[in-house]
């Protein structure tokens, strides 16, 4: 496919006249893990939602592999924040993962054996095959996150958007998720991850976007994740910012 997996130009989003994102422009290289970083209220989730067309943008353009977003929906996978749904919904893990296939099924058609098989494979990939028939409220937070991830895998996308997949999960699940992300990367897929934990940035991501209402910096982690850039993203609030940026990767 031609062009950048994701190209955003002059994207501006406002909630009730209060601007959240101001003229954000960047390109994302193919086959990378990209971390979207920034303080609370910096517009990280908003950026994801605006790119996905979940909330209207005031201005700007989003192109996926050099075509408008609407035409490329089938190659996009999405992992929303875990808290965004009611987990007491009457359904089980396998059923949720099968929802990832709905976009490929089209109107009226019911998921069948083939979809069930794909969903089982995706559950197995996140280590959740034994929980396929479990009601989703009976899963732990980490397991629910893995179900969401499996659902995104079932979408079989080229470009993935994940909204804080590491929030509130234990170390085992975090490891499982990051292994999966690397697997996706090796298949040439591109993954955009909204992330909070600065200490793991150097270890996890090839590329970072630093966001604070506007785009502060974007580029390869080595060059972009610097004390100076972090200072202008987070302000002087975190004393250890310099430490995060100078700690050599792989020590955690």
């Amino acid at each position, binding site marked *: 496919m031609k062009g950048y997996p994701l190209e955003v130009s002059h994207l501006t989003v406002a909630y009730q006249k209060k601007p959240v994102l101001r003229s954000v422009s960047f390109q994302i290289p193919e086959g990378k893990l990209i971390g979207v970083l920034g303080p609370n209220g910096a517009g990280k989730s908003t950026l994801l939602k605006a790119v996905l067309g*979940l909330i209207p943008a005031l201005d700007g353009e989003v192109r996926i592999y050099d075509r408008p977003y609407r035409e490329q929906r089938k190659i996009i996978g999405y992992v929303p924040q875990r808290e965004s749904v009611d987990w007491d919904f009457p359904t089980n893990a396998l059923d949720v993962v099968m929802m990832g296939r709905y976009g490929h099924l089209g109107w009226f058609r*019911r998921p069948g054996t083939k979809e069930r098989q794909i969903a089982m494979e995706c559950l197995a990939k996140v280590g959740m095959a034994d929980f396929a028939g479990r009601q989703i409220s009976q899963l732990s937070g980490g397991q629910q996150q893995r179900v969401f991830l499996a659902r995104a895998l079932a979408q079989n996308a080229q470009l993935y958007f994940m909204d804080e997949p590491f929030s509130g999960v234990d170390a085992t699940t975090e490891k499982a998720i990051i292994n999966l992300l690397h697997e996706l990367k090796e298949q040439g897929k591109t993954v955009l991850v909204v992330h909070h934990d600065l200490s793991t940035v150097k270890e996890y991501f090839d590329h970072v976007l630093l966001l604070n209402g506007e785009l502060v910096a974007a580029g390869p982690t080595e060059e972009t994740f610097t004390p100076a850039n972090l200072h202008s993203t987070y302000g002087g609030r975190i004393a250890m910012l310099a430490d995060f940026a100078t700690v050599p990767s792989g020590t955690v």
Partner: protein
Amino acid sequence: MLADLIRWFTDPNMQWILAGSLLLGLGSGVIGSFTFLRKQSLLGDALAHAALPGICIAFMLSGVKSVGLFMLGAIIAGMLATFGISAITRYSRIKQDAALGIVLSVFFGIGIVLLTKIQHSGNGNQSGLDKYMFGQAASMMLSDVYMMGAVSVLLIVVCALLFKEFKLVSFDPGFARGMGLKVAFLEQLLLLMTVIAVVVGIQAVGVVLVAALLITPAVAARYWTDALGLMVVLAGVFGALSGVTGTLISSTLSNLPTGPVTVLAATALFFVSAVFAPNRGLLAKWLRHLRSRSEVQKYAGRAVVHQSQTVERGTE
């Protein structure tokens, strides 16, 4: 009473009315499942109350009692009510629950004023509109029953065809939109179907209580199963049971309004479900609690004794 019951069952007119109530309950239960899961139970109630002025205005303009026109009036009023609710929440700091409360009572107030005006006018007594408050299934014309049955079947068919879409929109609308599903359209459709279910049910169950036929069966069904498909079917069955029971009792006993009886039947089903359902029921929860407590005591008995001793020493 038994003789009455047999007489009603053999009366062809009554058979139709019973069949209509059954289909109405079925359709309301099915569509109500989605309303309930999307946490819009109160919206159903607001729409039902908003329907009253719509129906009254339709009658005042046309001068005839036509279910089709009433439905049009009710749908327009329902749309105005939903616009009102979203306008209030968008342009003020008032939250949705308060907005629902405001809109519901304003529309109902207007409806009652109009209804009183109609009843005092010349052809008010023939209109039978007073029956719309609490419903009177037995007073329905055969054509109304056909209409009610046909519309209910239509609702069920649409729910069956769009089951997977409705499921995804109810569970995770953000994901559905990202996937390219026409979420706004599907949400509007579900809302429209809720209005339609409410409006066809009004004559049988009444404006005030029709929302209960939408929500109570769905809530009761949720107790029995963790699978959406089964829940929707069960909600339909519970709705149908309530509808038929309500119609039967209200028709055999001297002119009891149908709505309250139907609601009481649905609520009885809800109580049985809440207490006796496996897993989610109160009884099952209580038994589980007892069992785990006795297990804990068996294994941790010694530790508890030990701990209480140290506590006593600490207080000395």
